[in-house]
């Protein structure tokens, strides 16, 4: 049972409580039996589906009973009993699913029923978004709500810029809202891709690369977040993505712009290394510095391999031996302050764990 404390042992159950729970069991089992019997008999009368609603209010995950309601209501929604009845029925279902979601905000079956209602084309989508925004205030990390939000915004033709503003407001309220950072990784490439249009309910796997101005703006945002709390992983995971975007820009550059792209990437790496150094200087306790140290290690690795690939020996930089030594020290320190992931750090140092995409890969 998620998050429910164990009852104490060795104490006889309170007879009052026992009586109450027996009564609860009797009522609930009777309700289950009646509803499932009527469902089996395909009884779609008003009383039967009201009982079904009662059961769902108490136990929103009983998918069969949502199926039952959909079967019973399909005709009404098609307008068999006139448009007024259809509207009334939709209002009832919206209220029922809202009650069920307040009881169990992670009920797959209830969210799916709500989506089915939207698919019927009778739900005002603006109100739907308002309600969602309210529900998401209660739990900004609810991935069911986020998923549903993507469906509704796509259906309503909401421009991705508007959703991007929403994620920004969430991040400003709480830098640790990973769900909002994630949403940006989907929205920003959509906004800044060459063929941007209205919101698509689709993924981020095949990503367009963003313009450098956007990458830089986002890196500034990460700097703010990591300066506020250098040990929160949300912004750092986002940072890794921005670096991979910057790298991808360089890799996809046309031959005639390659040298500019190379310089751009070198400048970006230099600035980010400087930022990590700044964070490390500002934080006295190295135990809080896992993320800037790890990021620093990856930035240095990337810079080194970039230089190696370009065959560009920068005489101002350390020699290969010294660079290797510096990396070794960073990973050694990571193993000390974050021993849980020792195995990963060892593989990373040995070059067997390439988490930041390598140039030319």
């Amino acid at each position, binding site marked *: 049972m998620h998050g429910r404390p164990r009852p104490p042992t060795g104490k006889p159950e309170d007879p009052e409580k026992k009586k109450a729970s027996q009564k609860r*069991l009797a009522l609930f089992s009777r309700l289950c039996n009646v509803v499932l019997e009527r469902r089996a008999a395909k009884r779609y009368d008003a009383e039967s589906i009201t009982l079904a609603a009662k059961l769902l209010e108490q136990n929103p995950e009983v998918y069969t009973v949502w199926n039952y309601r959909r079967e019973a209501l399909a005709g009404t929604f098609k307008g068999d009993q006139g448009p007024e009845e259809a509207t009334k029925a939709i209002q009832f279902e919206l209220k029922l699913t809202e009650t069920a979601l307040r009881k169990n905000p992670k009920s797959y079956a209830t969210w799916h029923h709500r989506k089915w209602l939207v698919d019927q084309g009778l739900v005002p989508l603006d109100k739907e978004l308002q309600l969602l925004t309210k529900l998401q205030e209660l739990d900004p990390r609810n991935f069911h709500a986020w998923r549903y939000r993507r469906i509704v915004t796509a259906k309503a033709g909401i421009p991705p810029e508007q959703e991007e503003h929403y994620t920004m407001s969430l991040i400003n309220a709480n830098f640790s809202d*990973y769900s909002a950072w994630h949403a940006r990784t989907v929205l920003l490439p959509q906004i800044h891709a060459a063929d941007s249009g209205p919101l698509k309910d689709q993924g981020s796997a095949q990503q367009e690369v963003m313009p450098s101005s956007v990458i830089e703006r986002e890196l500034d945002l990460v700097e703010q977040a990591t300066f506020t709390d250098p040990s929160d992983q949300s912004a750092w995971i986002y940072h890794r993505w921005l670096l991979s975007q910057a790298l991808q820009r360089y890799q996809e550059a046309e031959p005639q712009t390659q040298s500019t792209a190379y310089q751009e990437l070198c400048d970006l790496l230099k600035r980010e290394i400087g930022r990590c150094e700044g964070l490390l200087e500002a934080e006295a306790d190295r135990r809080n510095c896992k993320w800037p140290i790890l990021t620093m290690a990856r930035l240095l690795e990337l810079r080194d391999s970039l230089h190696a690939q370009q065959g560009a020996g920068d005489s101002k930089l350390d020699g290969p031996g010294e660079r290797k030594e510096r990396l070794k020290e960073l990973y050694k320190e990571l193993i000390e302050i974050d021993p849980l992931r020792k195995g990963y750090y060892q593989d990373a140092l040995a070059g067997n764990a390439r988490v930041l995409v390598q140039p030319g890969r």
Partner: protein
Amino acid sequence: MTRVPESRRELLIDKHADYIYNYGQTKDSFEFYATEHFRMSGVYWGLTAMHLLGKQHMMDTAAITDWVLSCQHANGGFGGSERHDPHLLYTLSAVQILALCGALNRINKEQVTQYVRSLQQPDGSFAGDDWGEIDTRFSYCALSCCKLLGQAQAIDVKAAASYVASCQNIDGGFGCTPGNESHAGQVFTCVAALAIADSLHLLDKDLTSWWLCERQTESGGLNGRPEKLQDVCYSWWCLSALSILGRLSWIDQEALACFILNCQDENRGGISDRPEDMVDVFHTFFGIAGLSLMGRCNLEAIDPVYALPETTTRQLLGK
């Protein structure tokens, strides 16, 4: 890392076996009714846990087999229990149970596969049932089910794999549909689905494994998403995926084993999500499965892809 009290340092095998056995016997509880719609999965969790504990002889496999068969519908799919509609989630659980009971010959394999096939969409994804909910969990159910039945050719495996791959996010994890946030449970279903489809090359192994190893918290336990609390069930979701990707060494296994052991209820048996919470069969199974995957406590080995004892998958798939 938390210190584990003396009474919880060993895996309390007999207590857990009794707890699981009794769970199947108690029919007059609120929970019995409240969990009726997913009992098929409950039985699968319990029975698999018993196998891993080496206590399967305590279970009445003939009665279980009959009950599973009584939950099959005319379209070939299985419901969560006798009175519930067919669904891919419970069809997989039913097939897994029958595999454990050596009773796959009691069903018409083509009929079950036909049901699974009917749920595949043009984009390769799978609906959970006729009501059309799409989720990568169902892709896993479909692939696992067909493979266990020796009928993988019945579905479009390539399309299924490419849909799953399209759900990978920039952090290396996977969501329920494209664009949705990564979640460790979903990562297991997607990585295992790609493994069954022989398509692990479609994912970035290092990135996925790094995201997974970042799920381990100071407690030694694993969480399901960044900045969330640890929970025993992720001992399975994260660990199985890491195991499939060959990166189990990226987490501290000793710390995780201690966390799981500390979630045992030494009085009543069973394992909970976190120490001192109420136990249930779901977490009891995932805790034991996690320990098995790490080769601890003399448990039967579990197959990270199919979530069944290796002896069962070896027999069925010749692995």
